């Protein structure tokens, strides 16, 4: 492990010394400057993620006894031990935006043998970064790191280190040779050049429009997909003709991309020399643009949900219209539901008449005599029902009353609707029957049953016309809409009347109680024989006197 640490440190030094400016990017002097520091702390993880001005990033994770640097294990530590504690202190300082402020303390701490390898690995990768923040602290740290490496090295390890250095130098030379090609560190690269078949499949399953919209491009264009790469770099002078998809990868572009770039869950740095001729689409990603993007840099507000449409069958069957039998069956079903509703309301109405007849009649009179006022009161109650309930819920004192509030509202609505049925039935009786019949039928049960019939008649009509929908479809639609509007008006005005009359206990807005109305002609008919007899008697008396 010590060897690995030394190799890493040496690699950094060699790269810093030998990598030409073009490879290091346009901002060579700021290559190690920290642009963003991210810290995440949980019970068993402590993560530091830094983004650098060069577009590179570094992640150090302490998790379950393992130290991971950019995903690779770099050492082990004792969970809950000195290293973890110092690391968490350092991250708390870093969370304030100043990685350097806690560095001296972390660097000066002594750790046990268990943590030594991991400590050195962390220090080796952080020294160059912290040096960028604090020159003094960095110089000191570098000196100490170099001394540690020198002190720990044996002759054999020194020889291995030299060999490793030679290997790195060779790699750098090779890198110079391919300077104008992409550099991809780690990860998986998928190149799709023959994508017509894929595009056809996407069209078939319904994904094509969504992807076309997202990528603002042609699905048949070749695509370069880079997945989980530590770094993707397109140097200055290099050009990429394919569409570039960076997935969980960090990209640095200094060259030219002649299509769109999509970055998902990663970072993209567009250097000043870079030119992207298409759009840049970022999904959960950080994009820093210092170059030229000829399209737009877009961030889908929410990653577009991919809606997979049902696959289009090769042979489309025309959907058959419902048969006459099914329409009749459906219509009969609606009719049965309406009848059931009628019976249910009739039963509840009968209970109300039996137990609360006086109150029901008062509410009924209120809705008859003050219909407009009742309707407005009911409308206001419906509008305010939810806000008042919410206030009651929010206020702790009244929260307990919320169930009673809801139940009370429901009972008032039922009373109101039944009262509207009562009023409708009473008015119908007055209009349809002669005075004697009226006297015979003048009871609340009869009114409620009749009124419910009136209120639900439109639903019955709608159910019947549904059976002949092809002919009477317009009538069905009209009836069903009218039925619901009528029901809403009845329920609203009934509720309002119930409220105005305080559930039928006040007759403030009800018509005054009337004596039974006696039609004049009927009364005359009733009185005629009596008068005739009286007249006959008077005549007899007069003739006797004469």
């Amino acid at each position, binding site marked *: 492990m010590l060897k690995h640490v030394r190799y890493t440190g040496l690699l950094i030094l060699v790269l810093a010394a030998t990598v030409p400016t073009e490879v290091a990017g346009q901002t060579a002097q700021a290559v190690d400057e920290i642009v963003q520091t991210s810290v995440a702390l949980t019970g068993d993880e402590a993560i530091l993620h830094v983004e650098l001005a060069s577009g590179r990033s570094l992640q150090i994770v302490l998790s379950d006894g393992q130290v991971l640097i950019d995903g690779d294990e770099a050492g082990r530590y004792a969970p809950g031990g000195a290293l973890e504690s110092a690391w968490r202190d350092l991250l708390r300082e870093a969370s304030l*935006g100043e990685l350097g402020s806690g560095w001296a303390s972390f660097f000066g701490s002594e750790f046990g043998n268990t943590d030594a390898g991991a400590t050195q690995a962390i220090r080796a990768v952080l020294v160059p970064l912290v040096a960028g923040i604090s020159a003094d602290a960095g110089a000191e740290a570098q000196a100490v790191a170099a001394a540690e490496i020198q002190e720990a090295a044996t002759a054999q390890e020194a020889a291995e280190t030299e060999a490793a250095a030679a290997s790195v130098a060779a790699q750098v030379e090779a890198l110079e040779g391919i300077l104008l090609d992409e550099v991809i560190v780690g990860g998986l690269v998928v190149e799709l050049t023959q994508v017509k078949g894929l595009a056809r499949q996407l069209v078939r399953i319904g994904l094509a429009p969504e992807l076309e919209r997202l990528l603002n491009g042609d699905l048949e264009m070749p695509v370069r997909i880079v997945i989980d790469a530590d770094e993707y770099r397109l140097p200055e002078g290099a050009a990429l003709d394919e569409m570039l998809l960076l997935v969980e990868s960090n990209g640095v572009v200094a060259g030219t991309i002649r299509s769109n770039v999509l970055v998902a869950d990663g970072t993209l740095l567009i250097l000043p020399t870079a030119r992207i001729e298409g759009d840049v689409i970022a999904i959960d990603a950080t994009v820093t643009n210092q170059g030229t993007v000829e399209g737009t840099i877009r961030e889908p507000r929410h990653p577009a949900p991919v809606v997979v449409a049902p696959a289009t069958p090769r042979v489309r069957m025309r959907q058959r219209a419902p048969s006459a039998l099914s329409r009749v069956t459906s219509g009969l079903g609606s009719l049965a539901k309406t009848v059931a509703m009628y019976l249910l309301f009739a039963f509840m109405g009968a209970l109300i008449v039996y137990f609360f007849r006086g109150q029901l009649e008062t509410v009924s009179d209120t809705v008859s005599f003050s219909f407009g006022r009742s309707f407005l009161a009911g409308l206001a109650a419906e509008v305010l029902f939810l806000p008042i309930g919410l206030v009651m819920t929010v206020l702790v004192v009244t929260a307990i009353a919320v169930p009673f509030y809801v139940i009370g509202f429901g009972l008032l609505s039922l009373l109101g609707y039944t009262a509207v049925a009562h009023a409708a039935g009473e008015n119908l009786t007055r209009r349809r029957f002669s005075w004697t019949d009226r006297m015979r039928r003048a009871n609340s049960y009869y009114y409620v049953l009749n009124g419910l019939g009136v209120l639900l008649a439109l639903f019955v009509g709608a159910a019947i016309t549904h059976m002949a929908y092809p002919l009477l479809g317009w009538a069905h639609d009209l009836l069903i809409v009218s039925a619901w509007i009528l029901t809403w008006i009845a329920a609203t005005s009934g509720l309002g009347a119930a409220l105005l009359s305080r559930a039928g206990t006040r007759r403030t807005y009800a018509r005054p109680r009337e004596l039974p109305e006696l039609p004049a002609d009927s009364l005359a008919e009733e009185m005629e024989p009596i008068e005739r007899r009286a007249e006959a008697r008077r005549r007899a008396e007069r003739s006797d006197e004469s």
Partner: protein
Amino acid sequence: MRASVILAVAVMLAGPAAAPAAGQSWRTEAKARQYRGQEFLDVKITYAVGRFELRKGADHLLYRLDSRYDEDAFDLRSNYLESEGRGSLRIEIDDNDDIDLRDLKDYDYEAGNLTLDLTGAIPLALDLEMGAVEAQLDLGGLKLRRLSLQTGASDTRVSFSEPNREAAEFCTFKAGAASFRVDDLGNSGCRRMQVSGGIGRLTLDFSGDWDHDATGDINVGLGTVQIRVPAELGVRIEKSTFLMSFDAPGFEKQDGGVWLSRNWDTAEHHLTLSVSGVLGGVEVDRI
């Protein structure tokens, strides 16, 4: 956000019974980004449940966020994009799909928090959406060009402790079922304001350094609005309310539901407010 509001209401329902829960898995996340010559920052924050604090930070940092949340119940997503010197920061802490509403009564939701420091060096546009959040926002010293604040069932305190270093074109405050208070609105630099409240108490304090005229629309459904205006400011209130009491001592009633402060003709700066509401009361105090 709709899910957040539902969650917020559910949390409010469970609020009195809330107690520290054993099964929560707290995660602390912090991010700090250096200021590197950006010219503008557009910030949008969506926060479902917890405590939220926003203030001016160090000028060398573009932003710094510090959050603590239950990672079993919530997700933190933060996104920063930058192009041509204009940065765009999105922060979202919202409930994840795995949350079980039945467990809400055990949630110590107040232990979750989000603190955001923003640079005062460059102009900002702020768009904040909050659910059941206890929020303390000190927007003083920032360079606010635009402000939009929307809260659900929350207790929100906004203040402008220092004058806004930019002229804000438009400021919007929308409060749901909430206690909502804004202090030192005179420092906000807002030329046009829109304040709407669903249910609850709104307190709008127009103190501060007035160097401009402003107009505002205040609309409230159910609740009370307290408006505090400095004595030296000329104030005109156009009232359009239904079943709302209106109390404005020191104001003169004009025709058409208009009330004028006595110094309207002589005041250097003017504030014109249009107040509408359904049920509750409006109090206007001169301070």
